[in-house]
């Protein structure tokens, strides 16, 4: 466990050294400032649009961050040749995989917390507020979502270079996000192989929409039932474990060649 935590700590330090998080934070702040500065037909004291667009931006930023951090960890070690001294140490491949995933997940989760805090501050400045419990639930579920995305990114990056892995992760997560919630009504118009294909996709891809509490948060609805939140988190944990296992299966016997990932 110590070895996994050490690897995760290294990912954290790398994140502090690189500028990704700062760039995304500044972009988010700039967008929020622009939204606040809009002259909405001369109407002030309205916050719903700020909450909704702000949360969407926070989600997009954390998604970009989760994919970019998770997909570059393993290919970077191979490209720089540091995978050889790393594996020469008493560290197993599964520990490398878990350490990299944990680091990427914690970094993305912490950055998301900062994004939420910035948004909450802006909303308060505008005279609005978020429900505390719903906000905590939203962040918790968002954390579950980031667990799945980073696990998928790590799984793809075990066999692909960083660019290919990140493109595949973006496409897979976006498709899961946009298409899966519509499958129950798309099935009504599909026939034969198309219908079977939709059903396969429906059960195979992760249901990321379950982790989205934004509407409940924006429009002041009461918190979701704790049991439901718990079930969704368990589902997130399961999907994360599935992707990490797939990644491990792809990584355990991988042969490393110097310069192969250049």
């Amino acid at each position: 466990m110590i070895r996994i935590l050490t690897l995760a700590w290294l990912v954290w330090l790398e994140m502090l050294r690189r500028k990704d998080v700062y760039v995304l934070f500044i972009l988010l702040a700039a967008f929020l400032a622009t939204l606040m500065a809009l002259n909405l037909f001369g109407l002030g004291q309205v916050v719903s649009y700020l909450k909704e667009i702000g949360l969407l931006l926070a989600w997009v930023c954390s998604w970009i961050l989760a994919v970019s951090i998770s997909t570059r960890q393993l290919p970077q070690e191979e490209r720089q040749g540091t995978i050889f001294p790393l594996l020469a140490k008493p560290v197993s491949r599964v520990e490398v995989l878990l350490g990299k995933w944990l680091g990427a997940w914690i970094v993305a989760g912490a950055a998301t917390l900062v994004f939420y805090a910035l948004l909450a501050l802006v909303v308060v400045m505008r005279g609005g507020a978020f429900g505390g419990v719903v906000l905590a639930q939203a962040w918790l579920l968002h954390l579950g979502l980031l667990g799945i995305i980073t696990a998928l990114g790590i799984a793809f990056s075990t066999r692909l270079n960083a660019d290919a892995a990140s493109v595949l992760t973006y496409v897979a997560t976006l498709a899961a996000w946009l298409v899966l919630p519509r499958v129950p009504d798309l099935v009504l118009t599909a026939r034969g192989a198309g219908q079977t294909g939709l059903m396969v996709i429906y059960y195979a891809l992760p249901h990321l929409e379950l982790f989205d509490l934004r509407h409940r948060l924006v429009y002041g609805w009461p918190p979701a039932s704790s049991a439901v939140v718990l079930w969704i988190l368990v589902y997130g944990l399961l999907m994360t474990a599935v992707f990490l296992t797939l990644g491990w299966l792809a990584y355990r016997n991988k042969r490393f060649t110097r310069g192969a990932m250049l």
Partner: protein
Amino acid sequence: MGIWVALVLAILWGAAFALACRLTSPSADGLMPGDETDSPATAGSVAIKALSASRAATGNQLYEAADRTFHMGVGVYRRQAFTSWFTRLGQAIEPGGHVHLHSEGVNELVPWLYLATRADPHNVEAYVVASFWLAGEGGRPDLAERVLKEARANNPKDYRVYLEKGRLALKKGALAEAARAFDAAGALWKRDSGPDKAQAQLDRTEMLIYRGLLYEEDGDVPRALTCYREILVLFPGRVGIRERLTELTETGQPRVAPAAMRQAIMFQRQHVCEREDH
């Protein structure tokens, strides 16, 4: 590196979106093979067409966001072929039921309408809806007037702007101003009633009813009768109008005073969304 990949994907997606909007818009013929897209001069116009179609699509999307805000985050109902563990969990966390924003809370949907008009300044419906709510429960008729002024500047020949201007004037009690606005709306309607013929007929009926009632209040019964007869040409089944026409023709005096009738119609319009069946 991942951020750059995201950026490239976003640009590609944006281009695909603009093209898809153009191809699925009703006037997509210009992009078909063999059209005028070969010359460099028209290539620019194709790009502009594609972008303007995507502006309209974005405007419509923002208009739908306003509707969702009005229903406090509850999305539109979709019939589903099956239910699963995932759909049940989804329903448990998504807001549900038939709820609306009330009183000054309706102003929360104005920013979406504002953004919709910024994306597409010809989205007259967004202007009209913003003005309606601001002047009504939003309690800001001053801003409603400002919205309509901007709508008129961007869409000077659209009858709907003048129709809403007339409604707003009625709410303020400025009857002469309302009459002028309905007359202007009627003249523009005759020139171009827009693509939605069914809605255009309903709008024409509304302006004729208001105009007829205003004529009655001025004591000009013959012109009021002309308005009501025109309504019956559009909708022969309107029993209320037929009865009013008969009362005015036979006795010269309607059972319900025009001002009371006007108030009743405006009140009905304000509360139309309280029905459970929409």
